[in-house]
């Protein structure tokens, strides 16, 4: 599924909100430059504002200060040519899995026959074909979020934004999914931004990993992950991945986030 891939430029962007009589900075200022086709992860402690940053890029939250540009143009709220996966799968309970995925195509006015074929392929990629006609409340735990990933990809977006999409999976399931997801992303070539609290997941998937501080989240350091793809937890790469994870953990320890 070849697709375009957006470049994102974030320049001193931040978001504030009013809490009582105070104005609180939720996230930022953040500056990042994400190349077209790059996979960048933002790893941060809980409640650091990474979700808010993701939503600012998506155009859901306003950019209070600084600017965010997609392909050189300032974002318009909300940006529509993206695929978005939030922490909750947000599937519609009255629709089947296939209907939930095709909602993306319906609302965008896309060809439904082609979209249905793409949806089937995505489901098969994650081993979820047998749930095509299931309702969301009939799904096993953890699969709803994978369905929302399929929904986010069915229209071949130029930018994929994900907020901890795999956090409900256990370790073994996660390793299986990450392997499949890597290969899927390599095939699409889309720009991907992943917010996660899982250091290993970030290193396994990303070209670069941006480490964010506690609230208000700011970028502390960006690590370039120079490992060949696809990356697996086998003997050849385990120690290298562990080395990157160790460096990131060291940074968090210095911040007092990790013991």
């Amino acid at each position, binding site marked *: 599924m070849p697709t375009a891939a957006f470049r994102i430029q974030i320049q001193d962007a931040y978001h504030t909100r009013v809490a009582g009589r105070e104005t609180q900075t939720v996230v930022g200022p953040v500056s990042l430059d994400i190349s077209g086709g790059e996979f960048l992860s933002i790893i941060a402690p809980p409640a650091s504002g990474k979700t808010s940053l993701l939503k600012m890029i998506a155009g859901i939250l306003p950019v209070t200060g600084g600017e965010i540009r997609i392909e050189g143009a300032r974002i318009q709220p909300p940006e529509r040519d993206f695929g*978005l996966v939030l922490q*909750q799968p947000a599937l519609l*309970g*009255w629709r089947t899995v296939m209907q939930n995925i095709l909602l993306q195509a319906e609302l965008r006015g896309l060809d439904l026959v082609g979209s249905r074929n793409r949806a089937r392929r995505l489901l098969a990629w994650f081993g979820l074909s*047998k749930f095509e006609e299931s*309702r969301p409340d009939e799904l096993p735990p953890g*699969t*709803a979020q994978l369905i929302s990933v399929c929904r986010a990809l069915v229209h071949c977006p130029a930018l994929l934004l994900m907020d901890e999409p795999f956090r409900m999976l256990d370790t073994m399931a996660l390793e299986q999914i990450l392997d499949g997801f890597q290969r899927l992303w390599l095939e699409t070539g889309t720009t991907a931004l992943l917010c996660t609290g899982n250091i290993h997941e970030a290193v396994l998937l990303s070209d670069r990993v941006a480490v964010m501080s506690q609230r208000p989240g700011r970028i502390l350091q960006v690590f370039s992950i120079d490992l060949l793809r696809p990356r697996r937890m086998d003997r050849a790469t385990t120690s290298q991945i562990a080395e990157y994870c160790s460096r990131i953990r060291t940074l968090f320890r210095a911040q007092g986030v990790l013991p």
Partner: protein
Amino acid sequence: MAANRKPSSALTRPAQTTARPGTGMVSVAVVLLIWELVVRLLAVRHSSLPSPSRVLLELWREGALLGKHALVTGFEALEGLLLALVVGFCLAALTAWSTRAHRIAGPAISFFQKLPLVALAPLVVIWFGFGYSSAAALAFLACFLPLTSSVRNGFDSLPAETVEIVEMMGAGPATVFLKVRLPACLPFVAGALKTSIPLALAGASVMEFIASDEGLGYLMLYASATIDTNQLFAALTVLVLMALGFYYLIDLVERVWISWPAAVPAGTAAGRQMPRR
């Protein structure tokens, strides 16, 4: 992998755990049997407490009379209930849509919910006169506010992220309302109707006590005045059966057409599993 196991959900459907009619019938039959035996063995006066068999006989003998009055009460309650649903739904949608409307209407709704319904009956008679209209009006007042609150809960149950994602797909406000908010609200509407039916019937019956010459409430009042407890209990039984009938009818509609929860949570901590390829 337990592919067929349903995950527990933090967002459960309202009133979806209703027992089917058959499951309660055994316990009802036991209660009726005990009642029959108590009346017979203790020689309880029929004017105080008729046995179930006497009530059944009365239902058989006066079926036409009871049916005629039941229709009146039924239509009064139904009219009040449907009007309450339409007005309540619109008010709930408005307060969900507009923060200003919510600020104005919310405290008013909370205040009026505390008013005792029966105390409003004389006022309703003044406004609507004697008979059918007053009964329908009181039925409306009895269930309007509870319905509105339940439907509003339905709108509020939708996670903000669901709306955000659908808007990201290109949906405008009208599409979000029709394709997302309205279907998400339907389980709550069904639950609200089921809990409002007895309220509507009660409202209609209370007004029939006060200002009507027809309906089951009027019949019960007449039976009480003539110490005809057989007829009184028979009328009461018909009222209960009507409430149950409406309730299970809506339950059936809910099971067939509204068999979904409002949203799917991210999954439970226990039993995370991977679907097998």
